[in-house]
């Protein structure tokens, strides 16, 4: 089966803020502008770099490096903590500007949105003009240091590729006319979704660049390389057809924390687990769900990993229900080693309204109502105004963070 390139006019726009966390920090602090700066999860030497500024990227500093590695490259590198409140505010303004042009907006992460202009009146203006206008508005309405990349194409995959062609501050269009020339000038790993493992798989089938990938037959991709429907999706994606426009639903909530002070002290670990449960529970309850499945993962100081998940008959909804179930799993550890990271999650979510009440436990409903009331109080008067007594002395432990791919 051969399908031609999609020759429809491009209607998808991908917008990506350049070096989001770092650029926003430079916007708020003019003294940092034009200087190599990294935003790290923690400013300590082992802290993971979340975003290097454009100046730091030019020196070869990349996302995911440790602070100490960046300091080897450039000893005077400026290291800052992320400011989630500030970044979320920029995201809101960024999204609001985009909403003026199309109602079909999907935020892909804190710094990326995809807009669809199919059937939207603003389409008549021309997507290139809209892209330029959005860039101008970012500078005037958010801040003069904020720049973004705009990519325009017929599907999300090619729009994202277009947005990555000329960084920073680029605007590119990929359509049926320039598609092949663009594929011939990039590497396989420049394609979103292709990293070294898929690259190796493609290489083993004799495909060494995106143009060869594009020219590969559908049957080869489906039967030989990807060995599934994924091969067919790639065939369509590379030709500009939309296959990524689907809605995904939340299946779990999770929190993790890398301990500043590694420990095997059960009381210390209980406190951390309780705080993680409180944070996870708040999100779970706000979604109106309860969870039947609980998972606990522990990374030990010797880098070994232990994890266990369990589905319970009774769902967990309140923080104490989550905590007690996690402690059941915690106590299943065969060896108690020094813990360096704790990760908890809950899955198998069901709407609270669908839950059958227990015949034997009378006060479950009462406890859940109390939990909802406590959440309301915390919403009104601030986080942890009412909190489990065990975590009362750890206000600044486990800070607010923006996860990759989330808002």
């Amino acid at each position, binding site marked *: 089966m051969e399908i031609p390139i999609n020759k429809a006019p491009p209607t998808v726009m991908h917008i990506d803020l350049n070096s989001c966390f770092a650029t926003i920090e430079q*916007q708020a*602090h003019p*003294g940092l502008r034009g200087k190599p700066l990294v935003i790290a999860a923690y400013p300590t030497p082992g802290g993971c770099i979340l975003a290097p500024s454009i100046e730091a990227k030019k020196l070869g500093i990349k996302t995911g490096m440790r602070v100490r590695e960046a300091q080897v490259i450039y000893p005077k*590198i*400026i290291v800052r903590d992320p400011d989630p409140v500030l970044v979320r505010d920029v995201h809101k303004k960024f999204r609001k500007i985009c909403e003026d042009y199309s109602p079909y907006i999907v935020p892909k992460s804190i710094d990326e949105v995809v807009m669809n202009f199919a059937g939207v009146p603003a389409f008549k203006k021309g997507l290139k003009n809209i892209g330029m206008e959005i860039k101008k508005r970012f500078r005037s309405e958010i*801040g003069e240091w904020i720049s973004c990349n705009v990519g325009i194409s017929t599907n999300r995959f090619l729009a994202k590729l277009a947005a990555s062609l000329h960084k920073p501050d680029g605007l590119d269009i990929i359509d049926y006319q320039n598609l092949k020339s663009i594929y011939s000038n990039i590497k396989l790993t420049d394609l979103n979704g292709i990293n070294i493992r898929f690259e190796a798989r493609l290489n083993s089938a004799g495909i060494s660049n995106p143009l060869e990938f594009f020219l590969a037959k559908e049957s080869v991709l489906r039967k030989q390389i990807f060995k599934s429907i994924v091969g067919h999706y790639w065939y369509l994606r590379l030709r500009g057809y939309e296959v990524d426009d689907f809605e995904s639903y939340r299946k779990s909530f999770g929190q993790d924390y890398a301990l500043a002070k590694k420990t095997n002290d059960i009381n210390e670990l209980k406190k951390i687990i309780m705080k993680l449960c409180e944070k996870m529970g708040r999100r779970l309850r706000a979604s109106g769900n309860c969870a039947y499945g609980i998972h606990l993962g522990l990374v030990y100081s010797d880098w070994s990993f232990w994890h266990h998940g369990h589905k319970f008959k009774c769902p967990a909804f309140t923080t104490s229900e989550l905590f007690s179930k996690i402690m059941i799993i915690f106590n299943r550890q065969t060896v108690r080693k020094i813990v360096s990271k704790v990760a908890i999650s809950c899955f198998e979510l069901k709407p609270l309204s669908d839950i059958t009440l227990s015949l034997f436990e009378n006060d479950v409903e009462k406890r859940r109502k109390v939990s909802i009331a406590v959440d309301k109080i915390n919403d*009104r008067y601030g986080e942890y105004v009412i909190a489990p007594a065990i975590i009362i002395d750890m206000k600044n432990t486990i800070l607010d963070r923006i996860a990759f791919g989330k808002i």
Partner: protein
Amino acid sequence: MNQQIFEKVSVITSYNHEKNQAIPYKIRWRLREYFIKKLSYHHKMRQGRDLFHIFHVTDGNLDFKLHFNTEDLTWILEEVSDGNTD
């Protein structure tokens, strides 16, 4: 260098009715006065029902992060930065 301060400061603000924008004009902190040249970023934040206005401003040499609590009308200098390595 970036320093966390969290001290109350005296602030004079100016309001421009045409732009509908309020900007700190002068800060008095530890007996020194700083004239604000530019508002770099302004946003709001809620802690429970309390609303805070956060102003990132600069006097040309130092960058200041100011917190205005709309509940008790206090100004807190949260952070001072000179844009250099710590």
